[in-house]
């Protein structure tokens, strides 16, 4: 027992930080109705600001702490509130992509500004320790625990006992009612986002000494917070804080007992495991429901004649590419290799009204399976098909949350699953192993020399075309119609005798298989494939890029592949540095702008009037008449003017 205590201490202090991050996330989710994937990015921003102020400019740490928490909280809060107020009425998947865009933008900014290397983040809280029941407890750890508990309790009381808190809770239920009662929801939401961002920044600063200053790691802090939120059922603040503690202690304990490689990988991924299991176990109705389905009405196909002409031209042009472009051919090949993955993502998002944030993990499994199969002497094409088939069962596993959950929870479950695979399975011997990479061959068949770039390009083009035809067949056949219907009303389908879960499992299997084929192609092109090419950030980027490229299941897939890989090849040097940032900004613009255009700001008009009560009350005479005079009289007035 005694040797457990140190881990308990570490677990409780890091858990308190997870709890803080989780509380910020739940607070904003419950009030604004938008689940902020960029929460961890805000935390990273806080940590970098603190680092700059303290280490680079030599400010005393308490000042730097307050300035960076308040600064990031206020500025970040205002910015996010501005962005998200347009999103409140948007479809869940648009909200999701918008915050993913924000995440990519902030992360890209940090990468560009500070580079990708992890820096040491010096501990700033006192490291002097007291001995407590034979265990060494640092003052800093006690401070974190007390501070976090205090903030959690304070926030709880604030929401329960103050008017602003009550309004904040009211905003969750009905925005227009709140504004009718005389409180501007915008102001309340801004406050909520400020609090959330401030909490995120604080948690980022507190966790940084143990993680190091690494924008990717800090951004993923959000997933630790997801675990905490899942325990709090995405609604209860005290439970979320407790959830943070559970996540912290469980992670610390697995580190102690993690003697095998798999268990070691399990340590850091405990929160994802908790998230995944919680989403699987908790009855769907207990989860705070602010979910809408993902349904995006797809623009399926053009009329027959122009479609055929266009497709023919496109194929010819694509086949000519190797003789038109020169050294950049590898980028074109890489783009075509991504086409099956984008197609499969499109089938999920546009047709089935579902979502997957673990597509990179499917691709990774496809890549390693391909490497194994061709190593075992299977012909190239068979190994490719085998890779696709082997990933399908994984798709079925991911379909389990898809059966139970929709909207943001499905996104979270798949994201958690992807990270779980990345942390636990990627380093395992069956996948990339401890070296982190595998060899994969180029094709040599039917007189095609795959080592030649042109020959390989044509092979990849062929695979891309075949998968495209597969998707066309899916769209045209029964499954296409059933999927469309499934996105609209699963209830109606089941009361007509269809087992909708069969469809869901099917579509996830097909989608995963196609992503696996992409992975295999990527592996074959590189010759040596590493797990670092298939991170969860890739999954996020893929979805963001696809959504930016419109909603045609086929055309958008090709466009997305080109955006992701061909466009950067033509960009000036150093573009790589801005790439993530630009993708993020593009995703943000593509999701927020249409909503701004539609003027779909919920309760917008009420709110503006409420912000200046004097003007509303004294009002223009026209406003007064509108209220008092019946419609017929109004029409007469209108004609008179």
């Amino acid at each position, binding site marked *: 027992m005694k040797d457990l205590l140190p881990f308990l201490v570490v677990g409780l202090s890091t858990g308190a930080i997870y709890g803080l991050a989780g509380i910020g996330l739940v607070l904003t989710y419950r009030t604004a109705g938008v689940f902020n994937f960029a929460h961890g990015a805000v935390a990273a921003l806080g940590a970098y600001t603190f680092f700059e102020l303290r280490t680079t400019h030599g400010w005393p740490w308490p000042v730097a702490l307050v300035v960076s928490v308040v600064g990031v909280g206020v500025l970040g809060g205002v910015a996010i509130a501005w962005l998200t107020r347009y999103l409140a009425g948007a479809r869940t998947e648009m909200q999701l992509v918008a915050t993913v865009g924000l995440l990519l933008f902030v992360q890209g900014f940090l990468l560009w500004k500070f580079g990708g290397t992890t820096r040491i983040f010096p501990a700033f809280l006192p490291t002097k320790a007291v001995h407590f029941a034979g265990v060494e407890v640092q003052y800093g750890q006690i401070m974190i625990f007390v501070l976090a508990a205090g903030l959690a309790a304070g926030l709880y009381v604030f929401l329960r006992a103050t008017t602003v808190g009550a309004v904040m809770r009211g905003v969750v239920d009905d925005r227009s009612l709140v504004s009718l009662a005389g409180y501007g929801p915008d102001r309340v939401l801004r406050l909520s986002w400020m609090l959330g961002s401030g909490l995120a920044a604080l948690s980022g600063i507190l966790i940084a000494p143990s993680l190091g200053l690494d924008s990717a790691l800090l951004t993923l802090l959000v997933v630790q917070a997801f675990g905490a939120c899942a325990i709090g059922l995405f609604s209860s603040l005290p439970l979320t804080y407790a959830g943070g503690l559970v996540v912290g202690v469980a992670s610390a304990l697995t580190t102690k007992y993690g003697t095998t490689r798999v268990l070691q990988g399990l340590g850091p991924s405990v929160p994802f495991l908790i998230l995944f299991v919680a989403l699987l176990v908790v009855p769907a109705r207990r989860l705070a429901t602010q979910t809408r389905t993902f349904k995006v009405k797809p623009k399926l196909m053009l009329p027959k004649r122009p479609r055929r002409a266009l497709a023919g031209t496109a194929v010819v042009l694509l086949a000519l590419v190797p003789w038109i472009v020169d050294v950049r051919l590898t980028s074109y090949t890489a783009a075509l290799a991504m086409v099956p993955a984008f197609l499969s993502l499109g089938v999920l998002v546009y047709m089935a009204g579902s979502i997957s944030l673990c597509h990179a993990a499917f691709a990774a499994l496809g890549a390693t399976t391909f490497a194994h199969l061709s190593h075992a002497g299977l012909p190239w094409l068979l190994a490719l098909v085998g890779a696709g088939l082997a990933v399908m069962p994984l798709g079925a596993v991911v379909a389990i949350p898809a059966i139970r959950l929709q909207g943001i929870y499905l996104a979270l479950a798949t994201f958690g699953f992807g990270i779980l695979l990345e942390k636990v399975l990627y380093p395992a011997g069956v996948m990339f192993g401890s070296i982190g990479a595998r060899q994969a061959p180029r094709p040599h068949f039917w007189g095609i020399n795959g080592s030649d770039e042109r020959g390989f390009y044509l092979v990849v083009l062929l695979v891309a075309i075949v998968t495209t035809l597969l998707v066309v067949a899916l769209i045209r*056949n029964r499954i296409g119609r059933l999927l469309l*219907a499934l996105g609209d009303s699963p209830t109606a389908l089941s009361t007509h005798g269809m087992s909708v879960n069969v469809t869901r499992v099917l579509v996830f299997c097909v989608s995963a298989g196609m992503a696996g084929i992409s992975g295999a192609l990527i592996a074959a092109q590189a010759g040596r494939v590493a797990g670092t090419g298939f991170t969860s950030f890739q999954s996020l980027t893929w979805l963001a890029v696809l959504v930016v490229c419109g909603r045609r299941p086929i055309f958008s897939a090709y466009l997305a592949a080109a955006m992701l890989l061909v466009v950067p090849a033509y960009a000036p040097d150093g573009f790589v540095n801005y790439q993530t940032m630009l993708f993020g900004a593009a995703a943000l613009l593509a999701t927020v702008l249409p909503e701004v255009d539609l003027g779909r700001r919920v309760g917008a008009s009420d709110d503006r009037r409420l912000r200046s009560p004097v003007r509303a009350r004294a009002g223009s005479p026209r406003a007064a008449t509108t209220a008092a005079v019946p419609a017929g009289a109004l029409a007469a007035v209108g004609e008179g003017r």
Partner: protein
Amino acid sequence: MTTVEAPPITDGLRLEGITVRFGGHVAVDGLSLSAPVGRITGLIGPNGAGKTTTFNACSGLQSVASGRVYLDGEDVTGLGPAPRARRGLGRTFQRMELFDSMIVVGNVGAGREARLAGLNPLRHLWCSKKEEVDTRQRLKEALDRCDLNDVAGTMVGDLSTGRRRLVELARVMCSGARMLLLDEPSSGLDSSETKRFGAILRSLVEDDGAGILLVEHDMTLVMNVCDYLYVLDFGHLIFEGTPAEVHDSPVVRAAYLGELDADVVPGEA
């Protein structure tokens, strides 16, 4: 409308003492009813009486706390909505559940295709030639009978509520269900549409030998098309009988009909 020689009454749908609870609230309390094939059975009662809940319990969307649900004599209490539908139970919804991103033809056809797809993954993926012909034939018939041919290529979202209700009915007809649960099918319909609707329902029962359980607030329609009525209030069955008996029952009048509907005379449209 007179009842032509009724087809033989087989079992259809039968409820035996079903109780549905939402937490502490008992929405349906020990309800027994029988809606045989070859008849239109009405289920009426004030708002909140438990009619839609009963429907959900019948179609398997809502589990029952106690009691049994029988379909053609088979106990289907433990089955989900899809297996019940495959045994011939079809339903429409008070808040319509249409496939809004599809056109009318797609909606109606999807009813049959969902039934054909059932539990078999392969049949989810592909549609055989034979099934295609069968679907097309049923589709045509359903569209004809519900008079939807002029809007066959329209997105369902662009239709009026009345036509949308008809699309939902056509969809469940096309699926080939023999026992239909219709939840307020005439709300949003004008009086001539309602009349036509009643005719379609009668023809379903008399020509196709289907059975219908109908939840409806439009008393003219109920009194005209139903063969037998069950009256629910606060989850309890307060009366059952022919439309004429229900019409004259003081219990029903006090709980639901009131004096306003007293001028509606059964059998007179």
